[in-house]
């Protein structure tokens, strides 16, 4: 468990078709929420953090490490970043069972069972993704990210397919899990309600511009 979190700072420009997403953000918070209308570039921002968006130019520093610096040609590839990325589309590997999806990052079976119990998907372990409901998929995708021992959790509308009670329950659960292990997280959502539970610091992204919109407690 790390005692100190030095936060992350980002200053990148990503060409998105006709316009460009230009974002500058610096935060020391362990739980950052980013809200904004769809199409504002929230998901792209997370892809830059995860390292799978290679078109971004600029700088990204996370916890004192340089993950991206176009000027010096520095780029830490995604497989070395150890981020727990849950994309908006709950993209489970369609050829693997729920169990193999959860354990994809090379996880001991006990931990798979543990997280499956926590997320209430224990009965589904041997199913293929195509036989899951949307909410079940999102939970499995979340569990897979949690199990990869992430240094940073990146959640992209992780509960969009769930109803409100389950959504709040899972939000609290993730919050507890992250605080227990001191894993910082970034949550992206078009719904401010989600960020209220999960995030300490809220940023609003509108048309490529970021503004700090609120800080919890």
């Amino acid at each position, binding site marked *: 468990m790390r005692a100190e979190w030095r936060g992350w700072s980002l200053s990148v420009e990503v060409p998105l078709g006709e316009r460009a997403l230009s974002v500058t953000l610096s935060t020391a918070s362990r739980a950052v929420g980013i809200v904004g209308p769809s199409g504002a570039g929230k998901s792209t921002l997370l892809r830059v953090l995860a390292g*799978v968006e290679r078109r971004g130019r600029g700088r990204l520093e996370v916890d004192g490490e340089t993950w991206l610096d176009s000027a010096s040609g520095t780029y830490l590839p*995604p*497989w070395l970043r150890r981020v727990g990325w849950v994309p908006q*589309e709950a*993209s489970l*590997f*369609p050829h693997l069972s729920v169990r193999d999806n959860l354990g*994809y990052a090379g996880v001991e079976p006990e931990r798979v069972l543990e997280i499956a119990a926590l997320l209430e998907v224990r009965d589904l372990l041997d199913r*293929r993704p*195509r036989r899951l409901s949307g909410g079940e998929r999102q939970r499995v995708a979340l569990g897979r990210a949690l199990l990869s021992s992430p240094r940073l959790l990146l959640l992209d509308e992780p509960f969009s397919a769930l109803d409100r009670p389950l959504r709040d329950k899972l939000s609290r659960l993730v919050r507890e899990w992250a605080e227990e292990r001191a894993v910082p997280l970034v949550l992206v959502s078009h719904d401010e309600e989600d960020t209220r539970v999960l995030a300490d610091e809220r940023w609003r992204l509108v048309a490529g511009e970021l503004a700090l919109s609120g800080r919890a407690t």
Partner: protein
Amino acid sequence: MVHVAERVELGLRTVVRVSATGPPSDEGGAMRGNIAERRARARWRLAAALRGRITWRPVISRLRPAPTRPLRAAPSPLRAGTAGERAVLGGAAVRRAAVPRGVLARAVLAVSALWAPPAAPAHAQDVRSPGGGEPETLVVLAASSLTDVLPRLASAWRARGGLPVRFSFDATSRLAPQATQGARADVFFAADEAWMRWLEERRAVESGAARAVAGNELVVVVPSGRDAPGDAAGLAALGRVALAGENVPAGRYAYEALVRVGVWGAVEGLVVRGGSVRAVLEWVARGEVPAGIVYRTDAVAEDAVSVAFALPAAGSAGAEIRYWAAPLTSAPHPAGARDFVSFVAGPEGSAVFAAAGFRVPGPPPGTSGAAQAGGPGPAPPSGAVPSPASAVRISLLVALIATVAGLAPAVALGWLLARHDFPGKTLLSTAVLAPLVIPPVVTGFLLLTALGTQSPLGRLLAQLGLPVPFTLVGATVAALVVGLPLYVISIRGAFEAVDPLYEELSWTLGVPPRRTFVRVSLPLALPGIVAGAVLAFARALGEFGATVVLAGNVEGSTRTIALAVYTLLESPSGRETTWVLVGASVGLSLLALLGFERLSRRQRRRLEDRHAR
């Protein structure tokens, strides 16, 4: 993410769609063909007028029959035969229909062919008399060993007031069936008597009309500057001997000569069959085979070969090499045809033949032996009938090896083209797909140049124990290269159908690209890859053009189903075997396509996860 769905659709549908294009609508096709031909004829008239070959009067008279009349309304020549004007029209319409590809046009052609059977040649000839709009040209089907000499004869005849002549040169064995199946030709030149008799039996040539016009001699040729054997016994030491096909006269003459000198037993296993004498000559000239048996006149015409020795001339009548010419009963220009034949058989013709190195018969027999013999002619020409079991076995083996050997390159290329951008990508893609559009024969020729025994690469392969030309290796290489485009397209589509998000996710879960490829991309694309393999297998089964050039047509070694069928088409005796092979070919191909279709569907289902929601 709608685009994912689209990508999946595109990924595999593109390949399927290739075969889904139907023929154009009947009537439209016929009409378009009609217009296209009218344009072509107008161009021809213009070009001819510019050359001063025709005067304006015939041009105007040719324009008279209104060509806009629909094909369907073409009156049958039989009915129209009485009324002159309409008969001309009918003939023109029938002739025009020979070019358009529409089904209707073909039907019209077939029906009108029924109205004018060869049994009524005089009548049919009246109908098709000049003035129907066709330029007056004598069409001659001739054995390919006459390629050089006949045009000279034609121009000599033209100088004497004959018609312009167009030629179709091929092996006699391939031309003869064409002549019986309604080819619009006037004169037939056969390289042996047996095929001429065969034509007589089928009434394609009138009994007694055939005339012996020239003789020839078989020689053993070697590439220029190579060691040549002194006699037939030395052939066996050369390792390979190229002969024309079993049913091609030159091939049968060579077989008979080798049997006569008693070396057939020793040479039989070394024989490579070319499609015609010209193919044999080409192989020897390129040094791909150490020796070949061709006509002396062919050897003289080719600088890159030298004559080792002549095969002894026949004592028995059946083995004498003699060219026969005859007007065809269905000739559109019967008078011209008769005149051309007697010109060729006459003293002037003989002089041209003699100048070209042909032997000229002393006292010409005048009429064919069949007519003189009176009784039923000898059995139609037959050669070794290809073994269907061997052909199927070779086909399956070649297709299987080509498919397995092509897997790794096809996956690598498919992956590269689907997921990577690099300079020269378009070039690479074009190069890979090229065999899809280049005629397979051309591909075969290029492969022979690149991998033949005269190229460094070919020599290297031969030293490694993988000689390419005329071997199973060659057949496999041909099948592989021609099948690779479909293989790569299919696999590329399979990879493109896999959402890159899966790979990105795998990376963020700590799995680097190479292992991600094995754990995610490959399994997700697997049904598509197998589908590609099945498609390549099917294409390899169907490969003909490149194989026949690169690997020859060697019974028991490179003679695949396609080559066996091709060989059997020249052999009137192999009807049943042909059908067995045709059945096997169609069956195997359809089975493979069925497999492809099922696997493609499975590929789509495998990626369903994301679209179900």
